């Protein structure tokens, strides 16, 4: 197992390098000159100025020189400067340092809630299979997953900001001036409730469904019956016998869930104006700010690779029949 982990960690670097290379190639050959996209709308630059700017940013050099230069700088821990001008000179490292903790807090909070709500709900649904409890849990989580974030967010804002205060005022005479929950005010601010809950509502399905399927897989196995027959408490049967054998698919899904929290957070961060990491990547993509795109892609990719490594190691931990060679 140690050798397996070590080999995967060594393999991490080629994968990361390949991702860097693909992203860089996409960026280099994609249509849309970053400088023209930045200036084109407002200014008409003549060729000479453009050529000087290209030279300044090193964009006139051949592909391999630019790529090599980028990798060399990256190896020294320098992610470069954003192409975007006029927004205070912040290096990409500083931008990431400011934006990443925000996205990480939201993602981890949502992930914890997913586990602590999803696994119990899935287990409950499985143990009451084909009853109204099962139907409500499954239907509810499917409904949450079916509505796109960009539809759910306006809907929830309309309800909480316009309809609910109106309703309270007319029925109970309470004046409740609810503000639109925009911006980032720390994890424990009330304005964080809505973004995180939207992430949880839309992401709950995978956890519930896989837990339910996994528990159903083992619920009628002989060893579960034996555990009951020898008089174990139901909680112990569930936690020690059933869950441990049915969580393998749930575990594998956590890798997907993690990346889902990051990509889902793109819309959340856009709509709620949260200055996070995912939003930073998409803003960069829209203005073709390649150094920033490269940095965000690379950091996002590293996270996903690490999550997958943990998942693979977890496979062996939960299912000893899987051997690593």
């Amino acid at each position: 197992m140690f050798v397996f982990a070590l080999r995967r960690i060594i393999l991490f670097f080629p994968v990361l390098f390949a991702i860097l290379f693909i992203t860089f190639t996409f960026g280099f050959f994609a249509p849309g000159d970053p400088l023209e996209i930045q200036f084109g709308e407002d200014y008409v630059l003549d060729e000479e100025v453009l050529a000087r700017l290209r030279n300044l940013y090193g964009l006139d050099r051949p592909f391999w020189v630019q790529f090599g230069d980028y990798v060399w700088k990256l190896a020294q821990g320098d992610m470069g400067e954003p192409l975007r001008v006029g927004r205070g000179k912040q290096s990409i490292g500083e931008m990431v340092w400011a934006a990443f903790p925000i996205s990480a807090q939201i993602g981890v909070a949502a992930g914890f809630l997913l586990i602590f709500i999803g696994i119990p709900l899935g287990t409950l649904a499985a143990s009451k299979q084909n009853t109204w409890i099962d139907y409500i849990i499954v239907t509810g989580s499917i409904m949450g997953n079916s509505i796109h974030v960009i539809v759910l967010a306006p809907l929830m804002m309309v309800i909480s900001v316009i309809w609910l205060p109106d309703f309270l005022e007319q029925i109970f005479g309470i004046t409740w001036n609810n503000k639109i929950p925009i911006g980032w005010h720390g994890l424990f601010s009330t304005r964080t409730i809505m973004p995180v809950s939207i992430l949880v509502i839309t992401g709950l399905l995978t956890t519930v469904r896989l837990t339910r399927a996994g528990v159903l897989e083992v619920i009628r196995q002989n060893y579960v019956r034996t555990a009951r027959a020898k008089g174990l408490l139901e909680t112990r049967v569930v936690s020690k016998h059933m869950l441990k054998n049915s969580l393998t698919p749930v575990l594998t899904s956590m890798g997907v869930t993690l990346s889902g929290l990051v990509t889902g957070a793109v819309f959340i961060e856009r709509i709620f104006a949260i200055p996070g990491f995912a939003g930073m990547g998409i803003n960069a993509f829209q203005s073709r700010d390649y150094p920033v795109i490269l940095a965000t892609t690379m950091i996002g990719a590293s996270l996903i690779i690490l999550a997958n490594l943990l998942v693979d190691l977890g496979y062996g931990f939960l299912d000893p029949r899987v051997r690593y060679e």
Partner: protein
Amino acid sequence: MSEQAFRATKVEDFEEVKQRSLWLDALERLVRNKTAVFGLFVVSIIIFLAMFGSVLAPKDYLETFMRTDRDPSTVCGRAVCPHEGPSGEYWLGTDKVGRDILSRLMHGARTAVFAAAITIILGQAIGITMGAVSGYLRGIVDDVIMRIVDILYAFPDLLFAAFLSASLRTPIVEFMGNLKARTGWEILDETIIIDYIILFGALAMVNWSGTARLIRGQILSLREQDFIRAEIALGVPTWIIIRKHLVPNAIAPLVVGISSSVGGILLLESSLSFFGLGIQPPAASWGDMINTALPQWRLYPWEVLMPGLLLGIAVFGFNYLGDGLNDALNPRQIRR
């Protein structure tokens, strides 16, 4: 007497036990499941709309609604009336350039079904093959395939799809232009067709790696089981083991995976539209309709909600159907 009993046990005297196929069995169980039937119902409606929506649509989905019959000043001050509320003529109102929303929704169903079907077929075919081969052969093949999967998997979905559709557009438009010049087929020049190709390609490339991983994981744990060892001991060729024994056994989680990925594909298509990279405006797609209406959600919330809820119902139907299929294909779960 004893002779008779002996005769009866001869092979020919037994009535042949009717073989029940996996799929027929599963279909029976599926029909018994109420929620699955509901999902099937929703999915059939969406597919029906995709096939006949263009015939059934009350208006042309590209036509802008011109108020020539009435005095423009009394309606909205202009000849074209955008953001009309629902009326007898336009059941669900008109969008921001005055096109009939209901007709556009009906046309959008075709885009949605096309996107889902083609992406699934392409993506799953690649994913299943890669995953099965990788999980069964292991060793160097496994390493190579899994590294490719890792690379694709590690890319954030949305960003990868966005990259592909942004950078593939120019070459594909050029290629189609050349092809048109050579063959003279007008259809190749349609922007809608080009949009479709780019979108499907991007979505399929995002989609296959998850399946490959899932199948590989299933097969890794299946191949340790006794019936596979027996096959190997009997000398059954590798590809028959994969096709006849490993893939059918790995299919239940795959079906859940496919069903949730149909929903995911429809949602991802809308997400691409959010960044202006999906189906481009003259063509009708639910994602594009949501996103053109999104900036004005406070003033015209129904324009976001109608395509949004229809998209939601479609995704919901596919998810329900998938859950039902999962229960139906996994006979062990049904016995109480």
